[in-house]
Every structure is written in structure tokens, then in C-alpha cells.
């Protein structure tokens, strides 16, 4: 799928949880799970567009889930129906459908759930268990239920589901629950992804992680978003954002 630079009209921009918003753009978009768009909804400041992973694609719209973190996402939060934004995409190597088989565990932490709704939807013909961790409030899990077999939820605060980390739930399923997975997909904070990669290594399960990075061009040209892997420095935007977990050298 060749990326394009285009303009899109905001259909909706709704708050789904504290600091978490869902932006819907009108149009016929085509993207693979785990790919992203560079999005800009302002003229001058901030200088750079923001990379947002594809949350969902419908026949006549594309959706992005984002957490308000800084100046760029604050500007996104202020968008209203009818506003025009600029998008470049779809970009990057997402989750490779051909490499995912059998029983699948999808593991997300916080806003790392953003690409995973579309992943679950794409994989709906497989047997998928979804593990979602949050700080306090939960979001998106209701939308995901329809595509997966089981949903396991954890919150740091204990407000909902298991009190603690989502990695505890995954470990528990594998160790006590006797669950066996053929593939694991993961997106979340680095420390959590590192834990998931460790768990998968112990259990000899291939795991694909989707990394996050500040970006400038988003196309693979400027080299500001590199991550360290066992095979040298790689571009998160072009070589990723999805990498085989065992290849990634985490900073956390």
C-alpha cells in the first residue's frame, strides 16, 4: 500500500476516557494492522506532525485513538467535526498477518491498546485472547470483545479486573491456566513490552512488539526515530513500528 499525503475531514473527536480521545476521519482508507499515519492539524506549531497508529478502519472512515500528552495531542483534542487535518500514510510495517497463526495472545498496556482493536478485528478468524492493562479507567475493551475469545483486564489501581500488571495475567494464564499460544502481539510501555518478551522467551512463543518513538518525516528518511536491535539500529517508522520482540534491545 503506497502512502499518500492527503487532507481529511473530522467526523468525530470524542473523549473515551480520562485523557484518551478517539479521532474519526471521513474517507476510504486502507491500512494494515499496526501501521500508522503522520497527522497534523495545525499550521505552524508544533513543527512536526504526530505519528498515530491506526485504531480502526471502516468503509468510509478511519479512526485514531490517542492520549493527550503534549502540545500536538492537545491540538488534536481541540478538533471539532468538520475540521480539516493533514494525513500521510499508511506508513511502516505493521503486524504481518502471514506470520500470525494458531492461538494468539494480544497484550496491551495503556494507550498501547490503540493499534490492537484493528489487530483483533483483522485476526477475528483466529482464536485470540486479549490482555489489556490500564492505570485506572479502562477503555476500548468493549469494542474488542466482539472479535476475541477472552478478555483479561488489569488495572494498577484495582478499579477493574486484576489489581496489578497485565503481565501478571499473561504469566498466570500460561503457568497456571495451561494456556498455550502460538503467537503474541504486544504494544505498551517499554518496561511492560520487555516483560512480555521475557515471558514469551521463557515459553518459546514468538512475540511481535509495536514500538513508539518521536518522529519527524515518518517515511524512513530522517533517521531520528531509530531503535536499537540485535541487528543494529533500525528505523521505527520504516523498518517497524512492529519488530520481532527478541530482536529489540529495550532501554527500560
Amino acid at each position, binding site marked *: 500500500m*503506497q*502512502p*499518500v*499525503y492527503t487532507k481529511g475531514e473530522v467526523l468525530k473527536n470524542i473523549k473515551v476516557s480520562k485523557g484518551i480521545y478517539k479521532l474519526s476521519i471521513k474517507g476510504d482508507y486502507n491500512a494494515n494492522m499496526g501501521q500508522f499515519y503522520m497527522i*497534523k492539524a495545525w499550521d*505552524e*506549531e*508544533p*513543527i*512536526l*506532525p504526530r505519528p498515530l497508529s491506526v485504531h480502526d478502519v471502516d468503509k468510509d472512515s478511519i479512526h485514531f485513538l490517542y492520549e493527550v500528552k503534549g*502540545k500536538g495531542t492537545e491540538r488534536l483534542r481541540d478538533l471539532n467535526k468538520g475540521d480539516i487535518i*493533514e494525513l*500521510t500514510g499508511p506508513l511502516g510495517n505493521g503486524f504481518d498477518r502471514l506470520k500470525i497463526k494458531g492461538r494468539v495472545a494480544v497484550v496491551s498496556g495503556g494507550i498501547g491498546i490503540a493499534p490492537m482493536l484493528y489487530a483483533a478485528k483483522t485476526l477475528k478468524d483466529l482464536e485470540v485472547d486479549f490482555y489489556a492493562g490500564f492505570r485506572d479507567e479502562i477503555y476500548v475493551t468493549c469494542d474488542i470483545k466482539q472479535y476475541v475469545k477472552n478478555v483479561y483486564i488489569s488495572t494498577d489501581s484495582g478499579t477493574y479486573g486484576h489489581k496489578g500488571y497485565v503481565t501478571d495475567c499473561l504469566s498466570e494464564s500460561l503457568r497456571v491456566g495451561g494456556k498455550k499460544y502460538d503467537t503474541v502481539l504486544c504494544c505498551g510501555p517499554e518496561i511492560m513490552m520487555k516483560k512480555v518478551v521475557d515471558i514469551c522467551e521463557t515459553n518459546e512463543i514468538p512475540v511481535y512488539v509495536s514500538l513508539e518513538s*518521536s*518522529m*519527524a*518525516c515518518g*517515511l*524512513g*528518511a*530522517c*533517521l*531520528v*526515530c*531509530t531503535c*536499537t536491535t540485535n541487528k*543494529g*539500529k533500525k528505523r521505527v517508522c*520504516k523498518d517497524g513500528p512492529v519488530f520481532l520482540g527478541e530482536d529489540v534491545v529495550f532501554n527500560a
Partner: protein
Amino acid sequence: MWYLMLDVDVCGVRLKNPVIAASGTFGFGEEYNQIFDVSRLGGIATKGLTLNVKEGNDGQRIYETRGGILNSVGLQNPGIEKFIGEELPKIRKLNTVIIANLGGETVDEYIKGAERLNDTDVDIIELNISCPNVKSGGMAFGIKSKDAYFVVSRVRKVCKKPLIVKLSPNAEDIVDMAIKCAEAGADGISLVNTFKAMAVDIKKRRPIFDNITAGLSGPCIKPIALRMVYEVAGAVDIPVIGIGGITCAEDAIEFIMAGASCIEVGTANFTKPNICLNIIDGMEDFMNKENIKSIEEIKGIIRRK
């Protein structure tokens, strides 16, 4: 007929228009060619090349500031051999002028790099003595005029291509530096590279970048870059390429009127991937409206009055 007005001659090479994608922001052109027809550009300055492969810097590499960005990439590149073998054949097909940006850590490395590029079909070499993000070399040659003179004169001896020297705004005396580069045999001068700058993470109480300093670019540097281009263009007889915070046709025209033969667009490529086309079209519109027949007609015009 737009090309008749916009084409320019730079060091004996004909550019279809004066807009060049700046080194480090455009890779080897291929990535952007997915988004727009890069054959419309006057030229592409490649990612900075070194004799051997370079992994670049660790840690965070990009940071936004008001009106600009700081980067600390550290000349990550595949090395000249791989560039020639894998990238050049592809970039050559893009049907625009190819400017190979050549970096180095030692004079010897610059010389070997230039020699290696002699046998290729790159159109121009842009000698990068101005990267602030590598510890040894790079900008080390771009601070004192005598150091620049030394490396440029040595490279000139072996280089068969038109040789442009890309200057650092961090030079002790940018005008003297340009004069010395011209004396050393440079065919052209491009300026400016990024300004040495920094940022602090106040929560972590440490610098944002592992190298502490990084290179500042973007609209915030434009007025200073413009002043430097004006001064340098007034001091040397060789073509000057204006670089620094250009985001629109009006900016580009300012640099031309200050004495630049053509311009490079860097950071603005990130704000809108096809912004170079807007700049080219906007320059043409301006020239039509102002009844300007050629770039040459307005080049350095502010000095003539």
C-alpha cells in the same frame, strides 16, 4: 514554460529550479518519491555520507522547540560503498540533480570519500564540514577558517566533481571561512548547517540529548541564516546556496535576493512532505506577478540598489 524562468546554473550544473532538498532531511529521495514526484525538484542533497558505515548517536535524536527542532542523528549512513552500490542507482532514476553530501572524521577520510565519488555519476559534492553532532571531525573543520582551508584544498586536489562546501553557522567568522574555502578551490558555498544548541529535561534533571548539544534548525534560524548568506554572497564570487528555516516561496525569494543562487529546504519537509513543490510553485507565481523573467534577475538584487 515555468522552467524557463526558474532554472539556474550552480557550479556549471543546470538545475531545473532553485529548490533542493537539504541533506539529512530527505534520505536518498526514494522515501519522498512515494509521496510526490521528486523529479520536480531542482536537486537532492543526500544524507551525509562517510567512508565507512556509521550507526549514529544513541539516545533521543529529535526534540521540538518553538519555531524549530533539535536533532542529534550523528551522520548515521550506510557508508559510501553501499551508497554507490545500492542507493545511487535508485536515486539516479529520480531524474534530478544529485548532490552527494560528504562527511568525514579525518582529512584522509574526506579525501578517500571524494576519490571514491569521482567515478560515480553524482553531479556535485557538498563537503560537510559542519555537522555539530559527531564528536570528532565534521564540524571540527568548520570552526576555524584555516582548518577548513586545509581540508578543502586537500579534497580539491583529488575531487573531479563540482565541489560545494557546506558551512556551519558556528564558524568563528563565517565570511572569512567562505573566503578561505573559495581560495582553497571550492566551486560553491552552501550555508547554513544547524546551530549548536541544547535542551534540558527538567523532570529528569538532565540534558535531553546524550551528546548534551544538538543541531537547531527550522524557521527560528531563518533571519540569522539569511544574514549570513547575505554577508557571504557579498564576499565571494562563487555561487552560494542559501539554507536555513525556509518554509515558503517568500523565504526562498528572500535568500535569492540576498545573493543565493539557489536554496535548500530541510526541516520544512517534515511539516508537509511535499512542501518543496509549494515553494517551487509559489516562486513561479511570485515571479509572474512581479514580472521577473529569471532567478538571475533578482539574485543579490538587494545589494545592487
